[in-house]
């Protein structure tokens, strides 16, 4: 039977049926999602993987231009400056601690006067400008202005800040002197001046016994001068070399582009022209050997400067007092004392390192990868050298997530257990929608609530003297890891709550019945049967909450403080009250400003890939737990 006269069987379907169309519609939807996901991954990889060769070249330039050589000296110089700053802070903390009462009295009096000045500034300035500007003062208008000023003065005086360290009489005298103050007067009220003078006198009194320390510190400060001068001098030289190399790189790139274009040129004439252009582009070959030789001539000077610095600093540990009476000063002193041995050891090794440094040691690709994964600095857009080290961002993200989880797990899982196991119907009907409602708050709104309310309130609370024992208090930065963690906890509670509640709900009723029939009480059934049976589901809920926390951007960008630095763990738990930056935040903040295709741009893509991998890993693990929890 030939094909043409093949008659379809009467059962066989004919044409493009509606059923097929519907099927196709849904299949294409599913297919589209998969295609888009694959495209996203491909795009991320394409943009991101170019980062490592680019970064390798930057690190190579860093070496061959001599920046690395200068940094060998500079790192010691920076350490010296930091140490010097810590010691000076300890010195002033000691003095200010000793005259704390004078300081507070002076500050409080000044605060009262400042509060008054701010509030009455508008009406005050109007009178003054009318009197000053040579405009014939209209007496009627002036009277009105004075009246207004008097009113605003009364109002301002009614709401002055508290002054717990001033006596009642002093406060009254201060307010009196403000109230009777001449409009034209530029002097501070007598009490403010007097207290400031008292404070200055107290400072001087307390500084006297510390004169020895002051001398040691001044000597220590001065010891770095030589090295500092040398470093600035070399900095100028190597920066010029680096710029020349970078310009050369641009020309080289032009040339390869032109040659590539020539290979595809349509006419021989066009090809000739392109090749000629390529030739001229090549003409200026960057000279790196000359500047490098000049730099290497400084080696002995660098080594000598280090030796001098080492000698000058050698006695520093002995020059420091055994202990300081003020706790803050003592803490800083301890920090400095702990840092000094490492600083001295580095100084000792410096001459050897400087002597052995060579500009032509190759920079392998693994160095770029290693520097990215374990680098402690993320420095971009600087005039010196860009570093793309992921650690500060990763640590920030992880610490924020840790805070968030520590708060969200008890709250979310606890609420889920209560609602599922113990709550009455009425309670269920109230609690569930309320918790789920949190999800409806846009994260940017949550972010500014976090800044304005939560951050400020927390910082104000931390200022109370009675809370000084809490590690990390008083908080210096309003925006910090803890604040961000709290808000993220709030954001992830609905996720954890809903999924954990589902997990508890999915535990078959037969388990509870069996447990009851064996004589278990309500609580025993919940804690010995239901919750263990839902455990993997609850774990999955927590992991999905974690995925949400790590991937969240807006809140951390607004609230985490965005300081790109690994928090200082020397203050223990207080590290959580320091500002930080995150993997997500850095992408959101910097991607809009980087030149397309630059190394920095690609670095952000690699951060994105890393983030993607982390969240994917978390979700995959969660998925595994979910499938295990099916009953």
């Amino acid at each position, binding site marked *: 039977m030939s094909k043409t006269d093949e008659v379809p069987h009467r059962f066989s379907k004919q044409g493009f049926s509606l059923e097929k169309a519907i099927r196709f519609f849904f299949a294409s939807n599913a297919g589209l999602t998969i295609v888009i996901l694959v495209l996203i991954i491909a795009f991320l990889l394409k943009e991101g993987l170019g980062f490592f060769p680019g970064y390798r070249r930057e690190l190579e330039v860093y070496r061959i231009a001599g920046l690395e050589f200068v940094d060998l000296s500079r790192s010691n110089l920076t350490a010296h400056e930091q140490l010097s700053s810590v010691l000076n802070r300890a010195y002033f903390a000691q003095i200010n601690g000793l005259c704390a009462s004078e300081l507070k009295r002076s500050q409080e009096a000044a605060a009262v006067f400042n509060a008054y000045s701010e509030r009455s500034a508008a009406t005050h300035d109007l009178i003054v400008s009318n009197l000053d500007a040579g405009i014939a003062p209209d007496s009627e208008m002036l009277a009105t202005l004075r009246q207004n000023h008097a009113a605003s003065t009364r109002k301002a005086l009614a709401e002055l800040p508290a002054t717990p360290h001033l006596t009642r009489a002093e406060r009254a005298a201060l307010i009196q002197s403000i109230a009777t103050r001449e409009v034209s007067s530029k002097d501070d009220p007598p009490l403010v001046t007097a207290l400031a003078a008292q404070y200055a006198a107290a400072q001087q009194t307390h500084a006297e016994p510390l004169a020895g320390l002051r001398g040691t510190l001044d000597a220590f400060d001065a010891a770095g001068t030589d090295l500092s001068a040398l470093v600035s001098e070399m900095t100028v030289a190597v920066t010029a070399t680096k710029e020349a190399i970078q310009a050369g790189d641009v020309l080289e790139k032009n040339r390869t582009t032109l040659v590539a274009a020539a290979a595809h040129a349509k006419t021989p004439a066009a090809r000739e022209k392109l090749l000629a252009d390529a030739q001229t582009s090549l003409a200026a070959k960057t000279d790196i050997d000359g500047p490098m030789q000049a730099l290497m001539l400084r080696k002995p000077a660098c080594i000598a400067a280090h030796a001098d610095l080492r000698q000058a600093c050698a006695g520093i540990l002995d020059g420091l007092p055994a202990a300081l009476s003020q706790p803050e000063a003592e803490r800083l002193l301890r920090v400095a004392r702990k840092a000094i041995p490492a600083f001295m050891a580095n100084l000792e090794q410096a001459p050897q390192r400087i002597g052995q440094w060579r500009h032509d040691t190759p920079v392998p690709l693994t160095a770029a990868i290693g520097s990215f994964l374990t680098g402690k600095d993320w420095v971009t857009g600087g005039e010196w050298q860009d570093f793309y080290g992921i650690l500060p961002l990763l640590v920030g993200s992880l610490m924020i997530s840790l805070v968030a989880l520590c708060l969200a797990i008890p709250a979310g899982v606890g609420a889920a257990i209560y609602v599922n196991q113990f709550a009455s119907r009425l309670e269920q009907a109230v609690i569930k929608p309320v918790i789920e409602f949190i999800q409806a708050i846009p994260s940017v709104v949550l972010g500014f609530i976090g800044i304005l309310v939560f951050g400020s309130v927390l910082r104000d609370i931390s200022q109370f003297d009675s809370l000084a024992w809490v590690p990390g208090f008083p908080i210096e930065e309003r925006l910090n890891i803890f604040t961000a963690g709290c808000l993220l906890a709030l954001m992830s509670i609905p996720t954890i709550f809903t999924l954990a509640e589902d997990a508890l709900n999915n535990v078959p009723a*037969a388990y509870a019945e069996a447990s009851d*029939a064996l004589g278990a009480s309500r609580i025993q059934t919940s804690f010995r049967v239901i919750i263990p049976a839902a455990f993997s589901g609850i774990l999955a809920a927590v992991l999905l909450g974690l995925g949400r926390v790590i991937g969240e951007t807006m809140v951390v960008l607004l609230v985490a403080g965005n300081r790109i630095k690994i928090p200082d763990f020397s203050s223990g738990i207080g590290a959580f009250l320091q500002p930080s930056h995150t993997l997500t935040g850095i992408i959101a903040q910097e991607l809009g400003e980087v030149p397309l295709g630059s190394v920095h741009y690609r670095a952000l893509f690699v951060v994105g890939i890393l983030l993607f991998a982390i969240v994917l890993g978390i979700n995959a693990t969660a998925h595994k737990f979910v499938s295990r929890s099916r*009953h």
Partner: protein
Amino acid sequence: MVTDLPPPAAPLPAAIRIADLCFAYHAKPALQQITLDLPAHQITALIGPSGCGKSTLLRCINRINDRIPGARITAGSIHIHGIDINRPDIDLQELRRRVGMVFQKSNPFPKSIYENVVFSLRLSGIHKRSELDATAETALHAAALWDEVKDRLHTRALGLSGGQQQRLCIARAIASQPDILLMDEPCAALDPIATLKIEELLHQLKKQYTIVIVTHSMAQATRCADHTAFMDLGRLIEFRPTLQLFNTPHHPQTLAYVTGSFG
């Protein structure tokens, strides 16, 4: 109905006395005026068509019906060893430890075999290893499961076969050494061989326990039960020694049911 029947030939001490029991879900009556004395150390089967209330009656005996909102006893009483179990001062947990229950669908906890068996001991705060081990072994022996699982006591209970799981549930129920064992169609989800094993087990168990079993299978009732109660529409129709009930039913409804003309 039942009341005018002659009493069993040799009166046995009743473990459970159900008197005039009426039971309702919300306003819907499920049991009406059930009066029944279940003899100790015997197996009593409850049979009847679906929805006749036999499971409800069984679940009244350990008050597991309390779990269902709106379910309550409207009249009558249940005495176990002479104590009214619906008195407000009854310790429900203690009652359920004395009256074990095995459900239609085996429901071991997602824990190890061992932890399933010692569950009720742990509830009473017993954590001494030797005591737990001894109880686990005794209970598993009694449930004829020991030989099959003794080498894998600490593996997941849900990895057992259906019949093994059901016997594990029996072991779990008898670990707290109850007096009475309630079984709600324990073999409904099992294959014939597993069913046979459970039935053999019942014969062993009745030496120690008073057993009440709800079953859909009249064959099972004839094989295992010493006494059988036939129920329909929430009422007890007839309660007599099993052979008598099946061979010479007094009531026409019973006759119709046991001969298969309805139900």
